[in-house]
């Protein structure tokens, strides 16, 4: 599978950020951000999983190799997981993946973890805005293929 981007050549590059949201807290949080019409840049693609513990590092790597400029793990706060311990596993996987990607040479900002609760809509929107700025500053991912526009 390869991503076939827009036909129009865009002079200014917009970051593509992949967001893994757990079904319970963080998806509701992102929903809350939308409903409340909080300002959010349209750079994110959300993938909903039932629990942050479902986010397989393989998905994250695939997202980066397919052209995402950054990948965000989100889920319920520690202690609030709908399935009790799923987010502990997500945290462990995230930490190991972080070391590996750091050793690989990928910039720190490209993989992030943020716990979000259902009521934190505005914090969520703010977080996405912050991440988008960070990514804009460091540029497109070196793992993107040039012809993936």
């Amino acid at each position, binding site marked *: *599978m390869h991503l076939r981007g827009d036909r129009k050549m865009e002079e200014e590059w917009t970051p593509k950020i992949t967001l893994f949201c757990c079904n319970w807290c963080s998806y509701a949080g992102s929903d809350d951000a939308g409903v409340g019409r909080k300002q959010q840049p349209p750079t994110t693609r959300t993938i909903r999983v039932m629990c942050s513990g479902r986010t397989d590092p*393989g998905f994250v790597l695939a997202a980066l190799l397919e052209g995402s400029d950054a990948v965000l793990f989100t889920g319920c706060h520690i202690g609030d997981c709908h399935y009790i311990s799923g987010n502990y596993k997500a945290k462990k996987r995230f930490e190991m993946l972080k070391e590996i990607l750091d050793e690989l040479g990928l910039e720190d900002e490209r993989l992030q973890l943020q716990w979000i609760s259902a009521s934190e809509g505005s914090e969520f929107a703010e977080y996405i805005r912050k991440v988008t700025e960070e990514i804009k500053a460091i540029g497109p991912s070196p793992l993107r293929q040039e012809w993936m526009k």
Partner: protein
Amino acid sequence: MNIGDRVVAWSKDEEIKKEGASGGLVTSLLTAALKGELVDEVIALQKKSEFEGVPIRTSDVDEVIKCSGSLHAAPINLTKFAVRFFEEHPDGTLALPAKPCDARGIIEQAKRKKIDLEKTYLIGLNCGGTMGPITTMKMLEKMYEIDPNEVIEEEIERGKLIFKTEKEEKAISIDELEEAGYGRRENCRYCEINIPVMADLACGNWGAGENETFVEIFTEKGLKLMNNAIELGLIETAPATEKGIKIREKTNGVMEKVAKKWHEKIFVPIEDRLERLHYYMDVMEDCIDCEACKYVCPVCACDESKCIDFYDPMDSHKISIYHLIRLLHLSDSCIGCGQCTDVCPAEIPLTTLHRRMADRIQTKYNYVPGMDMKIPPSFEVE
């Protein structure tokens, strides 16, 4: 004798004592284990030449006796052979000679329930390193000026690699050989675990005299192996001398120091991020998707694996996701056995890549794989 004892031992059979390395103790332990019905089968290395060893799994004592002798130029890892034994005989018992990397691989497979450690007798072998056969043959021609066909014996003693033919005996220091690009395989140079403390016994010639093996007993099973062989009248033992013990400790210390030096030499950190990323991208680019690295890895145990499921050769990715997933999944368990580099047809230095990742993760979680039954970090949840 007790657990923790250090003795010297040798075979009582004159033939085995002569043919076997250091008095033929390991051969005798294997034959004794079969004769005393401690095990169903043993794994031994059948020597086809000084540069070729084929692992066999057998219950025939005569076949085992024919396998005597050490073979430094046959870099084999026996873990997957042990796994296959338990696949075919889930209730069986097995004994095998195990270098530290064999024993560690087996312990890791035991954690993944592919091997029953209780039913595996690990006769540990001290190991200073193995060599690739083709490199060794070239080394003989270039550095020793000996025809590989004429070699009748090889030995490593006090940091020197010695080759004997009918006519002569030549020794060159391993340091000198390795500076020239020959000598041991690269991963063996920086391996710091030379004494198999994770096995049932540790056998070697450090601290032992002529035609005898220095044995350290670590476990109940190790004690059982020794007592069984003594009762059958196949081996004789004597307590290790203080001097022998000291020599062994000193040799081990020296080897560890040399290993650390090699580690520093090979694992040079690449400070600049982009340069590092390009290093990884370049080095893995030549991969031709043979999957031999996965086949031969002693720690890989998946029946259905994500590295293969996620990988589609039709994708045009800048780095192979097969390799990225393996680097991640093995980062807590890589034991640095070097098999992956040995079998890669594109000459990718896979062991170095995996160890770069593993050094970081294993240090972070303070975990050394293959030493005991402690669960790997990726299996654990806080």
